[in-house]
């Protein structure tokens, strides 16, 4: 499938590398169009984001009481769902600029994360304006190790 005439209305397909440190967005046919730190600065009074990405990163450790610079991802998984969704929404809109675009989204997650954590990424993407379902690239094989398994095994940790 090359250029679908609907794609300009529906929004182009995008791939997102939602990283702990940086988020990268790849648009089909255009390559990497966005590379920004995964940081959101929010106004705690009304919960609205003030800055996202590089601008927000400069605010880390330099904020007054009413502003919080948050890194919504920790250890490769979502630590703050709402903020993460806001960040994704902002990035999707920056790439698309069309308000009603619902792009098909492929999103990358670390292979060691649990099903619940993966589900959170998927839902964050869908709430942020991705066409359902948001696709997750992950490695489909059973994981014998990882925090989820360790706490179920008898030895104390």
């Amino acid at each position, binding site marked *: 499938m090359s250029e679908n005439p609907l794609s300009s209305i529906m929004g182009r397909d995008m791939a*997102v*590398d939602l*990283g*702990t440190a940086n988020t990268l967005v790849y648009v*089909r046919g255009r390559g*990497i169009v966005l*590379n920004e730190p*995964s940081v959101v600065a929010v106004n705690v009074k009304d919960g609205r984001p003030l800055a996202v990405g590089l601008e927000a990163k400069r605010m880390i450790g330099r904020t007054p009481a009413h502003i919080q610079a948050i890194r919504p991802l920790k250890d490769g998984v979502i630590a703050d769902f709402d903020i993460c969704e806001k960040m994704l929404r902002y990035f999707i809109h920056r790439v698309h600029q069309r308000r009603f675009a619902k792009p098909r989204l492929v999103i*990358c997650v670390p292979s060691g994360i649990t099903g619940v954590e993966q589900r959170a990424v998927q839902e964050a993407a869908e709430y942020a304006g991705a066409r359902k379902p948001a696709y*997750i690239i992950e490695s489909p094989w059973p994981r014998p190790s990882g925090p989820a398994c360790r706490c179920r095994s008898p030895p104390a940790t």
Partner: protein
Amino acid sequence: MAAAIGAGLPVQEPTGNMIVDIGGGTSEVAVISLGGIVASQSVRVGGDELDDAIVQFIKKEYSLALGERTAEEVKIALGSAWPLEEELHAEIRGRDLVTGLPKTIVTTTEEIREAIEEPVASIVDAVKVTLDKTPPELAADIMEQGIVLAGGGALLHGLSHRLEHETGMPIVLAPNPLHCVAIGSGQALEEFEALKGVLFSSNPQA
């Protein structure tokens, strides 16, 4: 997986490829053959952990409180996993925990290397554990082609020397370590219809 595609590895071929992706929060090691993962290991140690180790070390040695951003800058400038040809030093600024006043100290690459030794060692261990789980045929392939490093952590000075020394395998740095994963997922997107069944799991099972 996406990192391996992005690094340009022949993932669909019946040969072993090993990719080490060191990200901000996690490091992943995987051996890939025929489009699937054969052996893998994921540890929750990444760039953030290194920053944190630097903060703790400076606090302990100099009683100096460092910011997250400063620690990251120190890591990028001075962080290393193997002795450098020319050891560097730099001034860093923070808040003295004893007097409570701002203070500047001079630190060296040796010190920072010592500070981040533990997280670096756990990344190296993850690579070793994965190699241990790799079937012999594939291990031989990897021996020939080398281990590919990707992700921001791959830019840590001397990491390839360290891994080479510890595993005895040749190490290759991916051409665009920071962009590998995005390029890889992008390529999966370009061939969406073909790869749909293989790559994506839209219904994760817990």
